[in-house]
């Protein structure tokens, strides 16, 4: 049990770090997909099947593909330089990240909540989830439906080509102010 989890966690973390470090963007996304799959495996580990499958369906099936499409659509721009990491304060950023992790880890080890053992068997039933979605959480569910609709329309509108302006995807330079090279 713990061994399986350790392997999964290791793969997940490693691929997450790879996703945030690699130079090649497509590789980044593929690593990200592995991370998402690892997280789904963690859910299955925690005997949350429904959520795990949802995770695979949404993240592996949809979000990563979306990211890939976005990547392929934003190619060929005026990349400033080849260095992908932010050159100015990458050390500060890294430090902040490590500091955050340290603080969180300290908090986790200090907390008394984490001492309790898991109940022996806890099964998630799809029916119960559905019932609590439609009883207790029906209002958030409806709001979410609205949000998804709005997001769908909004994303389509945002990504639509702007016909009026001259800055079509194939024109050479933007007409907007702000020279990006300074």
């Amino acid at each position, binding site marked *: 049990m713990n061994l399986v989890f350790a392997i999964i966690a290791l793969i997940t973390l490693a691929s997450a770090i790879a996703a945030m470090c690699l130079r090649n963007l497509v590789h980044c996304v593929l690593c990200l997909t592995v991370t998402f799959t690892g997280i789904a495996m963690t859910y299955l580990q925690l005997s949350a099947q429904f959520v795990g499958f949802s995770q695979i369906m949404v993240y*592996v099936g949809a979000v990563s593909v979306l990211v890939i499409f976005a990547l392929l659509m934003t190619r060929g721009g005026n990349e400033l330089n080849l260095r992908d990491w932010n050159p100015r304060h990458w050390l500060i950023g890294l430090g902040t990240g490590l500091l955050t992790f340290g603080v969180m880890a300290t908090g986790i080890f200090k907390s008394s909540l984490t001492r309790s053992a898991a109940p022996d068997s806890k099964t998630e039933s799809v029916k119960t989830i559905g019932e609590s979605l439609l009883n207790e959480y029906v209002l958030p569910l409806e709001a979410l439906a609205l949000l998804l609709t709005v997001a769908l329309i909004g994303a389509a509108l945002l990504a639509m080509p702007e016909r009026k302006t001259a800055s079509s995807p194939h024109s050479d330079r933007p007409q907007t102010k702000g020279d990006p090279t300074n």
Partner: protein
Amino acid sequence: MWFEDLLISLKQQIVMIAPEHFRPVFSAMLSTIPILSAFGGLFAVITLVERKMLGRIQNRYGPNRVGPGGIFQPIADGIKMLTKEDIIPFSANQFLHLIAPLLLLVTAMLGLAVIPFGHKLVAVEFEAGILFFFAIGGAAELAVFIAGWASRNKYALLGSLRAIAQMISYEIPLVLSSVAVLMAAGSLSLPEVVEAQAGGIQSWYIWTPWGFLGCILFLIATLAEVNRSPFDIPEAESELIAGHMTEYSGFKYAIFFLAEFVAMFAMCALTATLFLGGFHAPLPILDFIPGPFWLFAKLILLVLLFIWIRGTMPRLRADQLMEFAWKFMLPMSVMNLVTTGVWISLGGGVFAWVVGAVMNAGAYFGWSRLLSQSSRVKPRVYRYAEETKANV
């Protein structure tokens, strides 16, 4: 029933042979190996049948040289594929190039794990089985992308992007039309869906108005999902050579082929499970014939239907394909959900049947009329060409 019980007890006996620690693994292998071998064999048979049938449709013989009537053609094909040179393009990403067909095959085969082949004959019994099926199916898109991207070939990349766009678009009506069945059965578990259709041909879901429309939508979406003709644009030879498979050869190509067929089998098995009563016999008298037989019979019938469609239908254009998915399939499947809701709230019966039929037929005719009025078939738009012209 007797057949399934026999199989299960047999498996338990065999598992006992293994040492204690290996029993779970052994049990899993005993569940999977028959399924995989059955579908592998089916793959061989179906490729031959497809070529023969297409030949008949096109007024020619089809393979008839190897063995009597060409029945050993699959074996010959296999040998040919295995002995061909495996070419990896120089600039391709070797690891990803290798892993793509395997990933595709794995996703296709994993889908079979939740299909109930008979009473209690299901490899893994998940409570959210159908969700698993679709989730794994979603991962196939990623495999297609990896194949296209790792090849470092423009045709391959374009083909894979087309395939992904198509699969994502058609996944929505696919899932929505199966949701209708889940609503009626009240469960996400496929064995329970099959149980809900027990009792002969008249209780299959295809005979309800929503089931009928849902089944048709599901079949169309399935065609698109497995890139079969008339939705085989990603592999349109005349446009994209072979799509994401352009840079593959030899055994990897064969694996692509196998994955595609297994995916088709899995989808057909799911169709049969959702709408055609799964492993149930059409008449209660025929119950003595084991369930797997019926499931495979239905599956093969559907596959033959697909081959027939491939032989008769011309290929769609890419923009028409997407318009069809978003403008027709999606509204119809949403409408089908509404109809299902009405059906359930009316509690079935003749009245509900009439209401549902009227709702669905009205939606179909009204919507298709509206669509055909609003958009006559338009010439293909070359946006890139137009805009450059405008800029010049």
